């Protein structure tokens, strides 16, 4: 009697279970696709803007600086980059130090892009895949190929923030498994620690390097 009831129970709940499982499989990716699609669209838009920037670049430093700055401001999360790169020392910094650091790290990043600007020419980007990292971050992966085939192709992972009620922005670029933001953060922390935890020492060192 018990076995018959169990069998009939299994028969009854099986369609329900199948329905629930299929609903879950349908619902989850749809939610995931929302974030991923927004992040992928953001990267595609940034690549489009970068392409037209590169196409219209004639080597004029002032124009190039202006356009690169605009591009970075539009697509990158500078406030997030600023806080992340200062690590645990951000909280302890004074508001004057925070303001100064925000300016100086921005100059450092723009300077890095400008220094390597020529290397971006002749590259073609193709999207590979996207992976959601919780609800706030999407890892968008793509590949840069040299049109002439002289340089090896490079895999790039973009960390894109998808925070509620905030615009989608790029927080980090990972090139061949090396995160630019983590590298910057570890360098910054090393400088602060070798200067007995003084946040101001990092700002001074960065300013000195920029001025040199």
């Amino acid at each position, binding site marked *: 009697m018990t076995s018959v009831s169990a069998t009939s129970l299994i028969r009854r709940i099986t369609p329900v279970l199948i329905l629930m499982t299929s609903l879950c499989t349908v619902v989850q990716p749809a939610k995931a696709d929302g974030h991923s699609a927004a992040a992928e669209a953001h990267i595609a838009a940034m690549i489009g803007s970068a392409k037209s920037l590169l196409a219209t670049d004639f080597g004029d430093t002032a124009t190039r600086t202006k356009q690169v700055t605009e591009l970075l401001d539009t697509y990158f999360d500078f406030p997030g980059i600023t806080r992340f790169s200062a690590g645990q020392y951000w909280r302890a910094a004074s508001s004057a130090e925070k303001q100064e650091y925000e300016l100086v790290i921005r100059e450092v990043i723009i300077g890095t892009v400008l220094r390597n600007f020529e290397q971006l020419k002749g590259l073609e980007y193709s999207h590979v895949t996207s992976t959601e990292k919780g609800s706030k971050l999407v890892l968008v992966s793509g590949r840069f190929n040299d049109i002439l085939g002289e340089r090896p192709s490079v895999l790039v992972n973009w960390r894109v923030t998808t925070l509620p009620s905030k615009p989608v922005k790029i927080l980090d670029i990972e090139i*061949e498994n090396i*995160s630019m933001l983590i590298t910057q953060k570890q*360098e910054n922390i*090393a400088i602060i620690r070798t200067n007995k935890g003084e946040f101001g020492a990092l700002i001074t060192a960065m300013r000195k390097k920029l001025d040199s």
Partner: protein
Amino acid sequence: MRHSVSMMSQKLINASVAFFTAVVAMLAVSGCSSLPENQRSDSRDPFETENRKVFAFNMSFDTYVVEPVADAYRTGLPRSGQRAIGNHIKWAGMPSTAINSAIQGKAENAGLATLNFLVNGLTLGFADLMEDETPIIKEDFGQTLAAAKVPEGSFLMVPFLGPRTMRSLIGTIGDMVMDPVGTLAGSGSLQSINQLRTPVAAVDFRARTFDAFNDVKYNSIDPYSRVRSIYFQTRSGMLEDRVSSTISSSYSDDEFDAFFEDES
């Protein structure tokens, strides 16, 4: 008879290089006291003071020797020649990859590396005759030790070799000692090619990464800590078989998770 004497001498050279490297590293480590944890700029780097001195030496050596040679190599040698040299260096590392993959139970990678070594051996690896697009993942003895759960040990900056952990340094020595290409090279021109391989590989690497390397060397505020960070991230990619992968490291995921937790 002559062949076996030459094989012996090659092995002796390999062992001497390995021994020299080990002695230098051991002296560097034993001759210095480790920094207390709260004085380190990175908890994995207890010998930072000495490591920074070795780094300064390596950078001087790079400035006066490696960088100019690498610059001449990348600008003077035709692309096809650079590609052939790159292929040969990759080919010479195949036995090590095959052996270490086999020890780690990565049968497919071991098989592919063996096949690649045998097929491309027809041209000493200078031409890539393999049509198979399946990537061969480089495996070294340091990765084998990591797979066997040998602890990573401290971070070390080794003269000429650059950044290592204690475990990866032992791995490098292990790879040098059990390098079968050295034994197979025998004598004559093959042996000369084999002896030149290490310095040529260094120049080839420096040439391939010329602009990125110079950017770190000349434009970083603290090139030492930047190199250390890049080394750990690259090594973690190799240990987790994530080279050229769309999977992020668990370490970086943790870093970003912690950041968002702090923010909320």
